């Protein structure tokens, strides 16, 4: 069954042209020197002729031609989806950082603002090849101590988040004279270097770089959240009359 040709018509039935067919038919007793190549060529020609006359694989050809393009489109879709997902997480990180800014900046703890963003972006981050930072280790230990499940890779991811994230706010020094104002409007911007991972698609966007020891292509994504600061627990500048 499997030896059965797809096209059972004999080779000579193929419209190959008289010359060739005739030549094959008229050379029934060739010399020993030339008889073997002549026979091989004939077989090859027969096979080629059979292929030309066969419609086997005619559907696979366009499929093979279209497959790379299709895979490329799929790769773009995957990469785009990953970027959208990252954008959502970065938006959320910006919200968290802004929430931290509301309470931490008046108290003189700007580090809390960035830390809120790092914590939110750790899950999005790849494993850094740098040694884990002290802060990453501290947060990891704190998570473990409080019973919050965290993977072993958390310090490496957190370290990447620290390296890849920039947190800014405007105005830089939101000190407020609270005798005349309740607070100050503040724009907190989180900028994250997303590591692109989908082959084929990542070449179209982003730029080559090395972040947290990882060389590859990265896309910079930013998100801004606007809040109003709380009142500080600390005194205004000058000590309000206290001895300095």
């Amino acid at each position, binding site marked *: 069954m499997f030896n059965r040709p797809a096209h059972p018509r004999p080779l000579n039935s193929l419209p190959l042209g008289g010359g060739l067919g005739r030549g094959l038919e008229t050379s029934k007793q060739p010399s020993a020197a030339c008889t073997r190549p002549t026979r091989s060529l004939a077989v090859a020609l027969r096979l080629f002729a059979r292929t030309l006359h066969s419609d086997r694989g005619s559907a696979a050809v366009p499929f093979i031609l279209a497959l790379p393009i299709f895979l490329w489109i799929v790769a773009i879709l995957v990469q785009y989806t990953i970027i*959208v997902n990252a954008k959502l997480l970065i938006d*959320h990180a910006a919200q968290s950082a802004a929430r931290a800014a509301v309470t931490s900046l008046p108290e003189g703890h700007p580090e809390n603002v960035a830390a809120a963003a790092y914590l939110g972006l750790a899950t999005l981050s790849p494993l850094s090849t740098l040694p884990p930072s002290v802060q990453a280790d501290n947060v990891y230990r*704190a998570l473990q101590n409080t019973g919050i499940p965290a993977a072993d890779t958390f310090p490496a991811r957190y370290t990447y988040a620290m390296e890849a994230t920039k947190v800014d706010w405007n105005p830089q020094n939101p000190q407020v004279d*609270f005798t005349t104002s309740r607070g100050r409007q503040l724009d907190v911007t989180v900028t994250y270097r997303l590591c692109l991972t989908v082959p084929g698609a990542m070449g179209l966007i982003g730029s080559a770089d090395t972040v947290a020891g990882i060389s590859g292509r990265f896309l910079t994504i930013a998100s801004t959240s606007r809040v109003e600061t709380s009142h500080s627990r600390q005194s205004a500048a000058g000590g309000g009359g206290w001895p300095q």
Partner: protein
Amino acid sequence: MTPRLLQPLIRLHRNTRGNIAVLLLLTIFCLVGLIGLVWNTAELATRRESLQTAADSSAHAAATWMSRCTNLVAAQNMVICQDGSAEVIWHAIPPTDKSVRTHLERELADAQTMLSGGDPQFASMRNRMLDALRRVDDEYAMASGAWQSVSGLSNQKFADQLQGDNFRKAVRQAGELLDWVNATYVNGDPANSPRRPGPPGPGGEGLRQLVEKWSPPANSAPFLQAIIASLQQQLAVLAEFESRTAPGVAQDVPGRVAAHEAEVFATQQEMVAQITPTISQQFSDQADFYKIRLTAATTGRGAQPNGPAQIQAPVAPADDPSLTPQPHFDSLRGATVEIDPINVHTDAAAIIWPTPESRTITIAGRPIKFTVNCNIPGGWGHVYAAPIKRYFEQRVASDQQSLATYMQRIDDLRRQLAELLRQLRGLPTNDTITPLPATLSDSVIDDTGNFPSVAAPPRLTAPDDASDQLRAQVALYNQHARAYTGTVRGLAGLLRSWARYYDRFTVPFAVATWHGHVDHFRHVVLKQLGTSKQFMVLATYRLRHIPDWAQAGMRTSAETAIRDRIVSQNIGPVGQSILSTLIGADPSGAGGGFLDPTGRNTVLAARYSPQASQAAFAAINAVAAEVAPQIAAEWVSRPWPYEITPPDTRVPPSQGIGKNDRQTYFTLIAAARPTAANAPRFILPKLTQTKAPELLAYAQAEAFNWMEFNAAYGGSERFDEVASDPNAFFIGCPLPWRLSTIGGWNWNSRLAVSDALSTSIASNPELETFFTEGGVTNNDPQSIDTLTLH
């Protein structure tokens, strides 16, 4: 041959239809997975933010209720103070009215009597001045004549050369000074030496010119008519005062005030009681709105076995059991006293120096005994109704101003009358006549190179071997010189009397009378308020000891204040006592004086005043230096009423409400967990191998008063210095203001860094459950602090 069974497979293999469909299926599956990933992320982020919003708004809203309640309580405390102030004014009106009316009516009666019956003293004033001036001239002629006789006889030789020289020097000085008195003091000529003063009149006149310029008219009727008219105007103003105050005076203000204060206090308590259920209801409503579970928690208080903490406003009634009197061993009395946190160091617990400090000092060989008063009325540092005293005092000071305007108008009319009478009499605005000096500078330098002071004029003493004639002339001179200066002083006194002739009708007195009565009743009513304790205090208000770091400064400050007060309140009476003794001991005093009686006391007082003042200051200061440290030591050892816990370390940076007070009384934690209706809804959880994480959000909110940092409302008050109130009364702690001044209206709410989370979890079981469900199974404070970013 192909087995029959394989035929369908062979057909399928040969069949190329649907190849793309398979790929599409795979692609769609991949796309659905990707969409699921994005959906899940979005769902998680949205739910988490929604939960955080719910926690934030709940915490903020609860803190806002706490702040609102505190503001309202502060405002109602102020209403109570205003009631008290009204009572002070009500009490002060009748005695003031009676006192001022009596004063004015007596003056009016006197003026009318003087107008109808004449004013003999006024009528004789001109003649008395002229007579006095004549006597001055006569006495000068006699004194001058006597001096010339003495001077003529002083050139003879005396056995003792030095005595003779001194006698001649004294004669010269007497001549010069007699000449100065006559020429400059009486007749207004320029001084005969640059080191001697000029004429005594305010415009450089001598007494003679003043008699001519200030010559009283014969008829006093215009003056008395002006006085009567002014007094009638003053009485009309008083009638306005009475008319305005009559409706209030007619009412039972103390009764109504007491009833209103009780009503306000009851309202305060009711309002405070309503805060807890109001916040609970609010939490419940917000939980329904967000379709979540909410709990409230506080640090170390308000915890319930099952359920949220009961959030309370940071206030308490002044009669709260936690504010019971505190025993204290009084080192000054050697006994234990009970210190009331509201009426601090009052009555039986007053800081009193137990024994009168009698001292004897010897001056000029004469022992002088005096007593130094080492106490102030009510005791050192005493204060009634301490939490509300500050605003009460301010309110009384403000309220009494409106009625004081009537008294001010009366006093202004009297000042206008004084000016009118002065103009009618032709007197200058400045009618000061310089007294005849007791001593004057000599015109010749002595052996030490200075110009010696010489009595004006000097009493002459004849040399031992002087002739009888010289002795008689010296005695005559001394007699006439004394008589002369006496008549000169008499004339100056007469001129002064004329300048002040109508002072009894013009001296302002009404405002002082009003303030005196207001002050008296302010103490009375404040004591009543303190005794009744019908007001609220901040929950942190307690009797506390002065912090260690502040004790040295407070001791120094209190000692200085006490010492200054002892000196200032005793320097007058003790100085006067010493001065009287010195004058009495002076050989030229009673019975043996050289000067006339009128001028003797003035001269001696002027002579001994510096000595008496120095002696009094030294004596009192010695007593104060001995007493003040002991009182200050007792002062520092006593507990004082602190509205907040004083900081453990020197300020700054721990200015304002401290961490413990803030977390315990002014802070709450709200935590939120999703319900089934509001949990994240993930798609394809099995495909994405994703388990929905347990969401949890929390927020810390606080009630705070931004005037903590305002120097005008307590931001500048020190813990290591005595604090003064508007009446210059001082106490050993910052004056309360957060619940009894307009600064107490400025409580607000804020979201804050969650530094009370760990302790709140430990003391609130429901919050602990929330956190356990949310994945926090171990409340490790340090780790919680590390993770508590907001």
